[in-house]
């Protein structure tokens, strides 16, 4: 195909001056992950005799599948030394794993394509096709022919930094941030440790915490172990408390204490309180986030309180109404609040059907029975004095029940 240059095909190809005299063979193409969607080649690594010289992109007259033509005969013959931020396409990207943001999957680069735009050669696409991979195994002529197979626009790709790079050099991919946390969690679980860490650190802290909540506990523990303690503590502190507690339970005592000590005191106290409940009891997997109202509170004031709890939106599906002693009276669904007059008092919204509750020490089976029997989206957890202490959401129970998924033999599906 005219206009596209295959990076795999270029490797080992001749580098010549305009006059046609060959000066060396191409080893690699150098780029930098900038903020632009399509990074420009900043130079070439060329083997000249026994040396590997750097040729600045400005010296490239043209690159075709047949080789490279330079507009200058002057070459700096000092050995190429990679500078911070430089990525070598052949060495660091070709045949490596990349994230296809559009498809939310991990892919392997069979070829990379450059295209000339003005005076620049831009990296415009990655080919992940099997035929392209097989083409590369053939003779040089076949290798250099560009027959794009399964090409992904480079704008939809999240590459990783150059090996040894100490800072992240590419801006986090905008569309990566738009993926659902579940999709991001699946992506992370498919990546090696270093890549996983890089992808995670490129996300906003809130998103990273949401993603961790979606990960399997073992994977989550691995992420926490790979992070510095302060970083791990910050991630845990941003997670929903019930999910954070699940992770903390899996850690050794000393590690758990270190993480709790590195967290803001109120968060640490909340998590420590939850950790006191046994894992298989309602208190062990409830969320302590409740929006509580008194009978005399105005609906408008309660709505204001809900707005302040925006970051816990997924954990709140009702407002708990309590009496003066803090004992449970009712659990008012958000819909009822929404259609009520803001001047109304909460007591006007209280009435049958009364909410289903479980004791803080109830076992998992009892919680499941109560939730399925009641057909509600959540259950209130109360202590021995009928004071609300937390809430168990149906999706938390789904996580537990989902372990039965994947059992494909008939006798396993009971």
């Amino acid at each position, binding site marked *: 195909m005219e206009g596209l240059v295959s990076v*795999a095909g270029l490797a080992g190809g001749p580098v010549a001056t305009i006059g046609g005299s060959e000066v060396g063979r191409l080893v690699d193409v150098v780029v930098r992950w900038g903020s632009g969607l399509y990074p420009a080649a900043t130079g070439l690594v060329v083997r000249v005799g026994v040396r590997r010289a750097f040729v600045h992109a400005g010296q490239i007259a043209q690159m075709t599948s047949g080789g490279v033509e330079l507009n200058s005969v002057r070459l700096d013959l000092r050995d190429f030394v990679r500078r911070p931020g430089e990525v070598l396409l052949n060495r660091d990207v070709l*045949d*490596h*794993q990349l994230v296809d943001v559009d498809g939310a999957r991990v*892919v*392997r680069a*069979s070829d990379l394509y450059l295209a000339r735009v003005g005076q620049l050669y831009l990296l415009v696409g990655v080919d*992940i096709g*099997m035929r392209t*991979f097989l083409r*590369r*195994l053939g003779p040089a002529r076949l290798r250099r022919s560009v027959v794009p197979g399964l090409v992904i626009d480079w704008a939809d790709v999240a590459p*990783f*930094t150059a*090996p*040894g*790079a*100490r800072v992240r050099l590419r801006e986090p991919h905008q569309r990566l941030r738009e993926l659902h946390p579940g999709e991001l969690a699946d992506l992370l*679980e*498919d*990546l*090696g*440790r*270093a*890549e996983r*860490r*890089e992808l995670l650190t490129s996300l906003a802290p809130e998103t990273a915490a949401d993603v961790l909540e979606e990960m*399997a506990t*073992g*994977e989550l*523990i*691995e992420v*926490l*172990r*790979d*992070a*510095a*303690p302060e*970083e*791990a503590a910050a991630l845990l502190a941003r997670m929903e408390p019930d999910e954070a507690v699940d992770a903390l339970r899996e*850690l*050794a*005592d*000393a*590690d758990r204490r*270190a*993480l709790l000590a590195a967290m803001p005191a109120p968060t640490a106290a909340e998590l420590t309180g939850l950790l006191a409940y046994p894992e298989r009891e309602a208190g062990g997997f409830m969320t302590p986030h409740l929006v509580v109202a008194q009978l005399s509170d105005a609906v408008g004031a309660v709505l204001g309180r809900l707005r302040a709890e925006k970051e816990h939106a997924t954990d709140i599906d009702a407002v708990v109404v309590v009496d003066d002693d803090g004992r449970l009276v009712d659990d008012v669904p958000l819909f009822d609040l929404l259609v009520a007059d803001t001047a109304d008092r909460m007591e006007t919204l209280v009435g049958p059907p009364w909410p289903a509750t479980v004791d803080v020490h109830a076992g998992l089976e009892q919680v499941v029975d109560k939730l399925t029997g009641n057909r509600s989206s959540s259950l209130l957890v109360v202590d021995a004095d009928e004071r609300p202490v937390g809430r168990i959401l149906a999706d938390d129970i789904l996580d537990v029940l989902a372990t039965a998924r*994947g*059992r*494909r*033999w008939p006798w*396993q599906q009971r």
Partner: protein
Amino acid sequence: MSTPPSGLNAERPLHRGRPATTRRAARRVRLLAILAVVGPGLIAGLSDDDPAGITTYSVLGARYGYRLLWVLLVSTIALILFQDLGARIGVVTRQGIAGLVRQRYGARAASVAIVALVAANVGTTAAEFAGVAAGAELFGLSRYAAVPAAALLVSALVLRGGFRGVQRVLLALSAVFVAYIAAGILAHPDWLAATRGLAVPSIPMTREAIVIATATLGTTLAPWGLAFIQSYAVDKRLTTGDLPYLRVDVITGAVLTGVIGFFVVVACAATLHPHGVRITDAAQAAQALEPLAGSLARDLFAGGLVGAALLAASILPLSTSYAVADLTGRPAALDDTPREAPLFYATFAGVTVVGATLVLIPGVPLVGVLVLTQVLNAVLLLPLLAFLYGIARDHELMGRFRATRAAAGPYLLAIAAIAACIVALGVSAIR
């Protein structure tokens, strides 16, 4: 890529100095953790005791008595070293050997290695189905019924079982190896001579002895087993926190593999060797055992052969599927459906069908295919071990789990020993 300092130690032992009840609870938790990780090491290890392995051990015992048992010990140590390495690499990088070789050594090196692996695996799969056929015929069953039934069984397991189903059946199948331990005991071996053979290395400097010693090493440390354990650990989604338990699993699997091999050798050394009985395959060994150790020993030996063949006939196509999908960057997981991972399942079906068919077509030179397979496995083993070593030492890929220079010593020693065996074999073949 840099690895930041970590304050949480993945391999830190549980806190000491707690009350006894807490320690008991911690022990229970640790045991449960080991059970959750069990699989890769046990399955990959025990599947090395396939019909080709049983044949090799039988010939070793029948021809040389207890004398070469030490070769089995060396092979077991090498198996522990490299299966642990492969599994560790898989867990840390989340990639199979094919993908990592492509990434680190280039597309050509990876393709050559995987093409050789596929060819060798197809041949070895045929050897496994030949083992099913031979074992079934000892029980009076036709191979034309037994082999297609085995192929269907294996395919149904992989297609319908999901990861956990497959693993449970494979682990259950592994139990058949107890049969070899029983057969070994029934043969009333000379335990003192066996201990001496295990602990004191000596070898007759003949071509035949070098061939059987190299074959023992090669059949225990098979390329397909190494490729399998790495991909299987990835598929099982083990994490670096599981590594200590995974090591227990690998060592247990390798030691059991060695123990089973030991009992096969002593069964043949105690019965066939004193009478100078020459055998060329495991089925003959089973038959030859009957007049010397009784019909129960024969049936146990034959039953073990069928079970071992079935286990390996499941692993080989799987090992191939993982490698091909990994090389080409396609999905490769037992929990994927055929629609999600078409190449993975197509490769599984292809290897199974070709392997089974080779055994059933009259006139196919099966012995020639098997010899070529063994040669390919031997040729492939060295570069594969070198690749594994290179990857394990790569800081970019392994980070803080990289093999240190000191830890790398035993691997280099093992590679050198295997290279010496292969060179000795080559030299003796030229002479």
